C-alpha cells in the first residue's frame, strides 16, 4: 500500500484535519529525541478517543500497515521513530485523567496524559505519582508504560512497572484486553509487569491504572563537591554501606556541571570535578536522624564543599541543574548522543575511568550524569554532525560504552529502552534462546509485526541513520 492509499484508508476513520499527510505536517513526527534518526511516515493520525485508536489499529492490521504509537516523542532510543511509509498514531489528545481516587490511592488515565500532570492532580490530596524521568513535564504515561521509564528515584521506589496496577490495551491484531487490577496484590502471573517495557511491540495502552503514593513529609537534600569523579563514586559506596536508603543519589561530572551552570545558573560550585546529590525523604524525625549519618559519611568522604538545602526553594535549585543537564549539554556542542547504560554500582569507578579513556581515544568529549544509586550511567557524547564521520565515531564510541556495561555485568539500558538505537546490542546481552522466547511472545501478540516494526529486536543488518540534518 502506498502513502496515498494509507491516507485514503485512514480518512474513512478520521475527519480530514486529523489525518496529517503533507510533508510540512509530517516533519515534526519524523524523529523523536534520538535526533540522529529520521523517517517519514505515510500519515499521522490524531485520535481523540480510544475507539479511534482501536479502529486505527484494526485498519492497520487488516491491511498489514505498520504503525507506531507516539506520546510526546521524548524517547531517547527511537521508540517513537516512525516506520517509513507507516502510520504514526499520536496519542496526545487522549489526555484525560478519567478517575482519581485518593482513598484508594489510584489514578486511571488515558495514555496521552503528561506524567507530571498526574502528580499535579494528586497534589491536593497529599499524593503524587512517583516515577519522575527528567522529561516528566513533557512525556506521557503511555510512553512511560512502553519504556518502563525510570528517573532519579528508582532505587527506593522502582520504575514505572512498579507503579502500574492495571491496563486496558489494544493488541496489534486488534483485540482489546484488560489485565491487572486496582489492588497492589494480585493472583495469577504479572501480566502488567510483562506489558510495561515492551516498547510498543504488544500494542497500545488505552487506559492505565496508576498507583499514587503519599508525598513524603520531609526532604533533606545534600550537595557535595569533589575534586575527582572517583572520590564522588567512592562516597556513594560509603553512603550505601552505612545502611541508608536515600530517595535519590545523583552524580554530575565537570562538563555537565559547567553546562548546567551556564544554562540554568543553579549556583553549583563551578570548579568541581564532580557533584554528588543525595536526597533523603520520609518522616521528619527519621530524615533528621538519617541526615546526621549522611553528613557524617559525606564529610568523611573527602568532599571539599558540602551544602544542605535549607528550604524547598534551595532544594528545587539543586535539582534544577541536574534535571536540565541533558538539554544544557546541548549548548556545549552542535550535537550530542545521550547514552543509557547500567553497571553494578561497585564498578562505577572502573566504568568512568574507561569512558574517560575511550573519550580520549575517539577524540570526542563525554559529559556524564548518572543515577549513582542504581549504577545507571548517562554519558552524553558530544559531536558535530557537520564534520564528516563524526556521527559515526560518536555511535561507535556509544557502542563501546554499551559493551563495557555488558562486560562489567550491567545492562545496555537502565531506562531509555532498546528502541532502534540498541537493538543490535540485545544479542550481545541475551543469548539466541532468550531472544527466541521473546520473539515468540512478540509473534503471538503481533503475528504481522506491525507494531513498532524494526525495533528492540536485532535486525539482519545494521540500520542506517536516515536523513541526518
Amino acid at each position, binding site marked *: 500500500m502506498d502513502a496515498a492509499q494509507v491516507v485514503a484508508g485512514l480518512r474513512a476513520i478520521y475527519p480530514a484535519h486529523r489525518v496529517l499527510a503533507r510533508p510540512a505536517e509530517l516533519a515534526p513526527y519524523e524523529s523523536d529525541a534520538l535526533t540522529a534518526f529520521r523517517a517519514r511516515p505515510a500519515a499521522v493520525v490524531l485520535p481523540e478517543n480510544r475507539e479511534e485508536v482501536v479502529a486505527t489499529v484494526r485498519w492497520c492490521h487488516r491491511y498489514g500497515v505498520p504503525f507506531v504509537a507516539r506520546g510526546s516523542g521524548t524517547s531517547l532510543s527511537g521508540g517513537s521513530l516512525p516506520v517509513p511509509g507507516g502510520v504514526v498514531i499520536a496519542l496526545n489528545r487522549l489526555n484525560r485523567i478519567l478517575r482519581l481516587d485518593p*482513598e*484508594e490511592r*489510584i489514578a486511571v488515565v488515558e495514555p496521552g496524559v503528561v506524567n507530571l500532570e498526574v502528580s499535579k492532580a494528586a497534589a491536593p490530596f*497529599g499524593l503524587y505519582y512517583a516515577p519522575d524521568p527528567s522529561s516528566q513535564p513533557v512525556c506521557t504515561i503511555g510512553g512511560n508504560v512502553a519504556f*518502563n521509564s*525510570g528517573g532519579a528515584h*528508582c532505587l*527506593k521506589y522502582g520504575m514505572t*512497572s512498579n507503579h502500574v496496577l492495571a491496563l486496558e490495551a489494544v*493488541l496489534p491484531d486488534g483485540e482489546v484486553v*484488560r489485565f491487572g487490577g*486496582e*489492588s*497492589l*496484590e*494480585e*493472583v*495469577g*502471573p*504479572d*501480566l502488567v*509487569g*510483562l506489558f510495561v517495557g*515492551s516498547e510498543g511491540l504488544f500494542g497500545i495502552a488505552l487506559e492505565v491504572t496508576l498507583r499514587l503514593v*503519599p*508525598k513524603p513529609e520531609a526532604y533533606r537534600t545534600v550537595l557535595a563537591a569533589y575534586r575527582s569523579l572517583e572520590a564522588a563514586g567512592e562516597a556513594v*559506596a560509603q553512603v*550505601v*554501606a552505612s*545502611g*541508608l536508603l536515600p530517595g535519590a543519589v545523583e552524580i554530575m561530572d565537570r562538563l555537565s556541571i559547567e553546562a548546567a551552570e551556564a544554562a540554568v545558573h543553579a549556583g553549583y560550585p563551578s570548579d568541581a570535578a564532580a557533584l554528588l546529590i543525595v536526597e533523603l525523604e*520520609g*518522616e521528619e*524525625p*527519621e530524615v533528621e*536522624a*538519617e541526615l546526621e549519618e549522611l553528613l557524617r559519611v559525606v564529610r568523611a568522604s573527602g568532599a571539599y564543599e558540602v551544602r544542605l538545602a535549607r528550604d524547598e526553594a534551595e532544594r528545587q535549585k539543586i535539582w534544577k541543574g541536574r534535571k536540565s543537564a541533558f538539554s544544557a549539554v546541548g549548548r556545549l556542542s552542535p550535537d550530542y548522543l545521550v547514552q543509557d547504560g*547500567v553497571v*553494578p*554500582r561497585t564498578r562505577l569507578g572502573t566504568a568512568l575511568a574507561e569512558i574517560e579513556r575511550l573519550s580520549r581515544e575517539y577524540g570526542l568529549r563525554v559529559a556524564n550524569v548518572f543515577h549513582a544509586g542504581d*549504577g*545507571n550511567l548517562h554519558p552524553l557524547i558530544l559531536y558535530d554532525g557537520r564534520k564528516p564521520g563524526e556521527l559515526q565515531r560518536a555511535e561507535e564510541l556509544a557502542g563501546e560504552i554499551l559493551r563495557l556495561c555488558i562486560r562489567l*555485568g*550491567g*545492562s*545496555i*539500558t*537502565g*531506562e531509555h*529502552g*532498546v528502541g532502534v538505537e540498541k537493538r543490535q546490542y*540485545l544479542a550481545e*546481552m*541475551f543469548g539466541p*534462546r532468550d531472544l527466541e*522466547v*521473546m520473539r515468540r*511472545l512478540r509473534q*503471538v501478540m503481533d503475528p504481522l509485526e506491525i507494531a513498532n516494526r524494526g525495533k*528492540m529486536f536485532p535486525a539482519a543488518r545494521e540500520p542506517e541513520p536516515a536523513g541526518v540534518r
Partner: protein
Amino acid sequence: MVRPADVTALQELVREYPCVWPRGGGTKTGLRPPEGAVVVELSGLRGVVEYDPGEFTFTALAGTPVREVEKLLAEHGQYLPFEPPLAAAGATLGGTLASGLSGPGRYRYGGVRDFVLGVRFVDAEGHVVRSGGKVVKNAAGFDLAKLFVGSLGQLGVVVEVSFKVFPAPQAHATLRVEHRRFEEAWEVLRALYASSFDLEALDLVPPGTLWVRVAGRGQSLGARLERLRAFLQGRGEVVEDDAALWEQAREFRWVPAGWALVKVPLTPRRVVALEQELAPTDSLRRYSAGGNVGWVAWPGSPAALSEVLQRLELRGLQVLGGGGPAYLGVRGPEPFAARVKRALDPVGRFGGSF
C-alpha cells in the same frame, strides 16, 4: 516425584515427560499439580550464586530456602522487605516467586514483584532461558521475571532468581490499637493509609485490632511512635519486641490446622464489603498491607467462599489447601494470559491454564 541434581538433569526431565510441575518446599499446600503431571522437586537446585551487599542484589538457585537467604542478608545488615511467607516452614525462592506471595512488610516498599530483577528458567522445550538481569535497574528486553511472579509453575521451571535487597532497619516497634467494632478500626486504617506516616506494615484483624509497624533508625523510633499515637488520639499499646508477632503473621500461625487459606487481592474500600459477608461465617480473616490483601482462613473446602468472592467480583488463590482448584472467585476468559501461555508453553508441558 523426581529430584534433579542440577539444571542439566532438570532440562532432561522436562524434555522427557509430557507434563511436569515444579515443587520447592511444598509449603503452599493449596497449590496442587495438574492431573498426570510429574512432580519435579527442586531442593537439589540450591545455593547462593552471587551476593554483593554493595550492589543491593543477590542471585540464588530457585530451590534455596528463603530462611537461608534471609540469614545471609541479615549478616550484612540487609533484608527482603516483602517478607516471603512460610519461610520458617521451608519456603524456597522459586516457590515464593511462582506463588507470588508477599508478607505484611510488602506494605512499605512493595511485594515480591517489585524486588525480582531477573530469572533463569527451563522452558517447555527444555532450554534454559534468561530474562532481566542482576542489576537493580534494567530496561532491556521483555520482563519475563515479572511475568513469572504468580505464574504457579505454568510457564516454565524457574531455576535461578535475582532479587534486589534493602538495608535492614535498625529497630522496629509495633502499635496495637484495639477497637470495639470493625468499622471503627477500618476508619483508622483509612486515615493511616492517607497519611504520610512511613509504615512498615498495616494490618487489621477483625473484629477490631489494628497492627501498625514502624521501622527505621533506633534514635528516631521513639519520636515517631509518639507522633503516631498522637495521630491516633493517644490510643495504641506499644509492643517493642515485635519480631515474634510478625513472624506469626508471616507464617500464618493463626490459621487452624487443616483449614484452607485463601489470598484475596483487595483495596481498602473493598475490605468492608468482604468483611460484611464473611463476619457471620466461621472463617478467620486478616487484612494486610493497608487493606490491599485479605487472608481468609476457611474450615474445609472453600467452595462456598469462592461463591462469595464471585458475587463480590473478587479473585482468590488457595494457598493452604482445603481441596479443589487453586483459583477461586471470578474466573473470566483471560485472552492476554492465554496468548502468553500459547507462546511459552504451546504443548502444555507445564499444565494449567490462566
